[in-house]
């Protein structure tokens, strides 16, 4: 799951730092992710994991780091390992 989140962030997050520097708890907004880019990240996550984030989860805090995104996906029933192909 983490690798897929990373791949989505690399493609859509428009971060100012290199992906190698991106730790699981790095604040993505501090790393330069704009709110515009964050919407693209959300859309890509919905597509990759075949789910819909409910409005209550569409908040800055939920998409603030790789770990917080993973927690959100777990909450929506995505399993840590068994992930469908993007």
């Amino acid at each position, binding site marked *: 799951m983490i690798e897929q989140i990373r791949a989505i962030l690399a493609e859509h997050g428009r971060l*100012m730092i290199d992906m190698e520097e991106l730790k699981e708890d790095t604040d993505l*907004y*501090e*790393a*330069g*992710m*704009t*709110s*515009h880019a964050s*919407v693209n990240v*959300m*859309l890509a996550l*919905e597509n990759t994991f075949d789910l*819909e*984030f*409910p*409005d*209550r989860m*569409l*908040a*800055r*805090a939920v998409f603030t780091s790789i770990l917080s995104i993973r927690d959100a996906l777990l909450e929506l029933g995505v399993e840590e390992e068994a992930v469908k192909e993007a």
Partner: protein
Amino acid sequence: METIVRQRTIFEIVDQIGQEVLAKAAPDVDAQSRFPQEAMDAMRQNGLLSVAIPQVYGGLGLDVKSLMQIAETLGKYCSASAMIWAMHQAQVACLVQHADSSQFFRHYLREIAEKQLLIASITSEAGVGGDIGTSIAAVETEGAMSRLTKEATVISYGEYADSYLVTARRTPESAGNDQVLVLLKREEVELTKTGGWDTLGMRGTCSPPFHVTATFPTEQIVPVPFSQISAETMAPLSHILWAGCWLGIATDALNRARKYVQAKARKNLGGDQQGSTRLAEAINLLNLMRNNIIASVSEYEELMAEGESGRAKCNSMAYTIKINTLKITSSQLVAQIVQEALLICGMAGYANESPYSVGRHLRDALSAALMINNDRLTATNAKLSLIQKNL
């Protein structure tokens, strides 16, 4: 019971100041494009600059609905004075809501109330395309002292403020959206005016561009990220209070149209009551505008009363869309209603020297779509609509 009595008194005071000071000054303030000093003096004498500050710090601690009603009342008499008051309240509220963990800021809130200090906003910046959520300017901290430089494209009442709340990147290395809010006192700031303020409307707000440099104690950085301050306080409260000002403008313009239609009707009993249909339709629009603002006020007050979970909801995309929509809708309605008033009054409304004149109202109302450009807010909402679920 006590609360009701006190609030009625403040509303009466505001209305009296409006009639006796703001309304009289408004034509000259507009014509000269000058700061409404007499209005500011009257507001200060009556403590209107600290009504949003909790009583424990020497303010009145008014709720958001009362603040909106004051903005509306002031807006009936002088749009520029109302807007200056409204912008100041939003700045004060940012400190009340997000800075009271700091001893410096608790002391400063007292000082605002005691001395009736006026706070201006320095969120605009050249080069960010009107996006206040992005900064180029950055705070450079060396121990207890910090400094910053900023090219502000507008600072409303910049030359007349006692202090400023400025957005900047947290450090020179920070991303553009990693912002802090910094309080700068007048004596810490060097302001160099880099342009004029000769505009179509809102001329009394005196909002030219400035080059800003400041050296200030590091403790004057508000201890919460600006993104949170913006989502929970600055954006909702600014939009609610601006909408309140615009509601006042629309109400006064339509009142002029009402007087015009009624004066005609009295002289032409039983005949064709020209303008009354358009007046009735415009009154519908005014009610729509008012009720929409009141609904936003109620929702915001409920979120604030909810505590942590309510604040979290303010940071949601769904709420961003709602509060952007309040601003877009109110700014469109004020211009529409004033134009209806103009059509009703005809030449009497178009003439500047006329009791039915709505020219100034129209010019002031047209600024509404530009204060954070509606196209920018619509673009944000368009993007968010790609992910929003509950309509």
